[in-house]
C-alpha cells in the first residue's frame, strides 16, 4: 500500500488506532480504573470518527448570515448532523463513565482494592 493512500484516509487510521488502544485496555488491563479509561478512549474514537466524516474541504461552519438574496449552498458548509449526533453520544459517554466510576467506588469499598486478580482471589477464598 502506498503512502498517499494511507495519508488520504488518515482520519480512519487515527480512529482505528484509538479504537484498538481502548479495546486493548478494556480487555487486558488488570486495574479497574485503567479499564474505565480504556472504555472512554474506545468511545471517544467513535465520536472522533463521526466528527471527521462531517468535514469538507473549504467548508465553513453551518451558520447562514441574515439578509435577503442569500443562497444556501450545501457544498460550502460542513455537515452539521454528525456533530449533533455526537453531542448526544458525548452525553451518553459521560453518563456511562459516571455509572462505571460509581460502581468502581462500591467495589473499592467492598474489597479495598481495584486490582481484579486480587478481588477474584478474595472471592475464591470466601
Amino acid at each position: 500500500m502506498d503512502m498517499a493512500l494511507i495519508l488520504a484516509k488518515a482520519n480512519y487510521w487515527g480512529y482505528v488506532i484509538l479504537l484498538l488502544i481502548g479495546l486493548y485496555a478494556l480487555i487486558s488491563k488488570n486495574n479497574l480504573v485503567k479499564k474505565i479509561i480504556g472504555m472512554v478512549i474506545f468511545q471517544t474514537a467513535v465520536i472522533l470518527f463521526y466528527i471527521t466524516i462531517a468535514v469538507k474541504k473549504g467548508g465553513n461552519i453551518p451558520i447562514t448570515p441574515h439578509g435577503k438574496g442569500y443562497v444556501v449552498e450545501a457544498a460550502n458548509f460542513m455537515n452539521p448532523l454528525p456533530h449533533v449526533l455526537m453531542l448526544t453520544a458525548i452525553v451518553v459517554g459521560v453518563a456511562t463513565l459516571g455509572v462505571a466510576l460509581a460502581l468502581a467506588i462500591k467495589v473499592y469499598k467492598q474489597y479495598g482494592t481495584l486490582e481484579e486478580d486480587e478481588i477474584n482471589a478474595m472471592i475464591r477464598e470466601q
Partner: protein
Amino acid sequence: MSTHYPALIIVVPLLTAVIVAAVGWINKKYCFPLSVASLAASLLSSIGLLFEVMKTNGEVVYRFAGWEAPMGIVYNIDYLNSLVLIVVTAVALINLIFSKGSIENDFPDKEGVFYALYILFTTGLVGMVATGDAFNLYVLLEIASLTGYALLGIGNERSPLSTLNYLFIGTIGATFYLLGVGYIYIATGTLNMAEIALIIPKLPNVGIIKFAFVICMVGLFVKMALFPMHGWLPNAYSNAPSSSIGLIAPLTTKVTVYIMVRAGITIFTPEFTFEKMHLDKWIVWLSVIGIVMGSCFALAQKNYKKMLTYIVVAEVGYMVGGFWLGNKLGITGSILHIVNDAAMTLCVFMAAGIFSYKIGDHISDFKGLFKKMPFTMTAFAVGGLSIIGVPPTCGFFSKWYLVSGGIEAVKATGSIGALAFIVALLFSSLVNAVLFFRIFEVAHFEPFSEGHGHEGHSAVEINEAPLGMLIPFFIVAFSLIFLGIFSGDIVSNIINQFIPVLPAGI
C-alpha cells in the same frame, strides 16, 4: 388521542419516572401507584396501537413534532413492533406488581429512586422497539443499558463487580452498533430505517454496507449474549436483586433479538441479509454451539438462579438460529419465541423471586416444597414444562416452528448447520427436562431436611408466598397456557402479516 399512541407509550413513563423520583422524597406512599398507572397507560396504548395497526392493515407512522421522515424522527409501528410492545409493557407491569413487597424489603429508603429507574428502563426498551430511526435506537439502547446497570448493581455484595464487567462488555456492544450506524450514514446519507432500506439496493458498491452490517451484528450479538460473548450474563444476572432481575432477564435479550430481526429485515432488506452476506450458515452454527454449551453449563449449576441464567443463554441461541435459517417458518418461530420466552422466563424468575424470598437459591433447599407451597409450585411447574416444551404450554409451539423451519432449510439446501440446529434444539429440550424434573423430584419426594427424622409423618405447615406475589405469578402461569392455545392466531394474524416475501432459494 389514538393518533398519539406511539408517543404516549414512551412519553408517559418517561415523565412519570422523573415525577416518581421527586415524589419519593416527599411521600413514598404514592410512588407505587404512580408507577403502576404509568406502565398500565403504556400497556393500554400498545394494545390500542395493535388494533390501530390491524385496522390500517400495515403501518402506523408517527412524526414527532410533525417533521417529515428524513428530517425528523419517525416512529414506524407495524405488526412486529406492536406485538413486542405489548410483551414489554405487560412483563414490566406484572413484574412491578409482583415485586412490590420485595422492593419495600430490599430498598426501604430508596423506593422512589428504584421505581424511577425501573420505569426509565422500561421506557428505553419500549422506545427501542417503537423507533424507526437508527440513531434514536442507539440513544434508547443506552438509556435502557445505563438504568439496567444501576438496577443490577444494587444486588448482593458481589453485584457491583459483576455489573461493572457487564458495563464494559455492554459499552463495547453499543459502541460497535454506533460505529456501524456511522458507516450506514456514510453510504446512504440517512438514518431513517425505511429510507436506508430503499437506498441500499440502489448502491453501486455494497462493500461498505457489508462492513456496517457485520459491525452492527457483532454489537448486537455482544448485547444479547450470543454464545462466545455470553460471559457477562450469568454473574450479572444471578447477583442482582430479584425485583430487577424479573424485569431485565425476560426483556433485555429478547428486545435485542427484536432489533436483530428489525435490522435484518427492515433496515438491510432480506435480499441483502440472506443472499449477499453469506453469513447465515456461520451464525446458525454459532447459535448451535450456544444452545449446547448453555444447556451443559446449566446442568452443572447447583444454584437455581444461576441455572436459569444459562437457560437464558441457550434460549438466545434458539431465537438467533431460527432467524438465520432464513425461511418463513424459522423467522416465525424466532418471533413467536420472543413473545413466549419473555413470558416463560418471567415465570421461572418470579419463582426464583419467591424462593429466595422464602427459602434460598440452592436446589438442595427445595426439599418438600410441593407440600409447603402447593400453589407456588403448581405455577412453577407450568413454567418449567413450558421451558421444556410440553404441548399445552406455549414453549412447545415456538419450538415446533423452529424445528419445522430447520427441517425446511435442510430440505431446501441440505445444509448441515440446519440439521445441527434441530439436533441442538432437541438436545436442549432434553437437558431442560432433566433440569426441571430434578427440581420437581427434590421438591416432591424428598422430605424436609431440618430437625425431625420421623420420615415426614409430622404435619407440614403450609407456608405460602403472600397473595400480592401469588396472583401476578398465577396470571403469568395462565398466560403461558393461553399463549400456547392461541399461538395459531398470533402467528396467522400478526406474525405472518409482518414477514415479507423472502427471496427464493435460501
